[in-house]
């Protein structure tokens, strides 16, 4: 429960989940947009990395 109080953990969880969702989605659809697949791929990867970084910061502060 104490971990949940850490904002870095909350931000890390949100962007980790959202990033993973976009990254996986990029393998299945381009949404009919020219840059669709690349955008989901790289934005998803970027959010995932950011999320993991925030989780690492949170873990490090324990």
């Amino acid at each position, binding site marked *: 429960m104490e971990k949940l109080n850490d904002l870095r953990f909350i*931000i890390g969880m949100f962007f980790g989940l959202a990033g993973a969702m976009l990254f996986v989605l990029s393998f299945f659809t381009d949404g009919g947009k020219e840059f669709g697949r690349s955008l989901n791929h790289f934005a998803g990867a970027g959010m995932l990395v950011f999320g993991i970084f925030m989780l690492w910061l949170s873990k490090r502060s324990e």
Partner: protein
Amino acid sequence: MRLELHLADYAIIVMYFIFVIAVGWIIKRQVKSSNDFLMSGRSVPLWITSLAFISANLGAQEVIGMSASGAKYGIMTSHFYWVGAIPAMIFLGVLMMPFYYGSQARSVPEYLKLRFDEKTRSLNAMSFAAMTLFSSGISMYVLARLLELILGWDFDVSVLLSAGIVMAYIFLGGLTSAVYNEVLQFFLIVLGIAPVVFVGLHEVGGWEGIVSKLSPEMTSSWKYMADAGDNPMGVDTWSVVMGLGLAMSFGYWCTDFLVVQRAMIARNLIDSQKTPIFAAIPKMLMPFIVIFPGLIAVALPHFVSDYAIPTGADGGPDYNMALPSLIAHYYPEGLLGVGLTALLASFMSGMAGNVTAFNTVWTFDIYQPYFVKKASDKHYLMVGKVTTVVGIIASIGVAYLAASFNNINDFLQVVFSFVNAPLFATFLLGMFWKRATGHGAFAGLLAGTLAAALVHGLTIAEGKGGWITVVHEYGSGLSHAFNMAWMSFSVNILVTILVSLMTKPRAPETLKGLVYGLTPLAHGEAKAWYLRPVPLAIVVTVGCLILNLIFA
């Protein structure tokens, strides 16, 4: 323009709603007193107060409005950042926070009470409380209209949903919950909009591509300002520097409790000073996130055939749709959900900032001094919570009022500008001139507000103003507002000085901690230079100057 959402988009939006309410629920356990609920127990870490400081201002007006201005006026919009924000944020951190924080005031109006008197506090508290409610309601109205336009969502459902979510997380966790969510919203807005900028710049060939296709006035921030008629904004150097850069900017960033509150909840004085200075670093870079989409939207039709800014009711480009239309143009399902959530976050962040500032000012500056002076802390905690609910309900009322009367937004913006324009003069003299008196401050505030109204009544721009008679016409509404601001600021300074010199000053020993010269100033405990407020402020100032020069 109508967007079609898919399952992945809804999943992101729902996940965001779950997270923001969960933040409130998690924080709820820590809220045991009115100080916890309304002041976060003055225990929030520096990185959070800094990001919350700019996020509280990162509302709809900034995200949608600045991209619209970028499309309409070009890179000159950056004046709202590199002239109209950074210098004031640095001034607040270095010179004003020692008085706000050091005086132990719980709010900006309370500082006025300590420094001047009750009537000056009341005037500021009442006008501020009214303005926050109207701002929150108008934010709600614009959000609901946008969702109606681009998603086809029902207006009533959007209003009630956004209000319900903001109310839930503030009611549960108070200011801490709002501040935590503001930080989440900040990252969401930046990461949700940044892909538009990357892919847009890629398609138009970078900044050079924009410069090659747009007129030089759209891509130079200072070059065409010698005469107001030479640039799309219709402003000259004097009005930008004195009106926007001094009166309006310092009036907002240094005295508006909505933003100053984020610095006042830092753990100690040095952190409260560093809050606006650290915040100035991402703030300085925000034009690349919020103004560049507007420039890209104007340049893109020169490079591709399947994009144009949507047209408005008058047949011309609807610049407010510049950012939403780019999101619709580029984003596939999934990222579209992130982009829309970023827009939702910007509205909710603005709304929550206003509500948390309102409940603090109402409880500490209106309810406590005028209704129940001495009661238990539990009582004031309850008042803070009830005020949150009442504030949200009143905001909903304003949203419907705005929906019923088209001109009410314009009218309120004008009235707010009358009140805000002279405000900084009162604080400037209060903090740096010990001779300033309560009667002087009150008279100066009233005279400054009346001067703003008088200038508006005697001058006209874009068909607005001139309701007394027209003695001068300004080239644009912005020029009108900037000039009105520095004139009312000057009147406030003059009247405050004159009346103060005619009235009895307070004894110097009663002004300790409130006025420069009578307050020991902290110079920073940190050993590393980059962790001390003044050197940090110098670095940020240099960075701001460089940005001004690059885009001059």
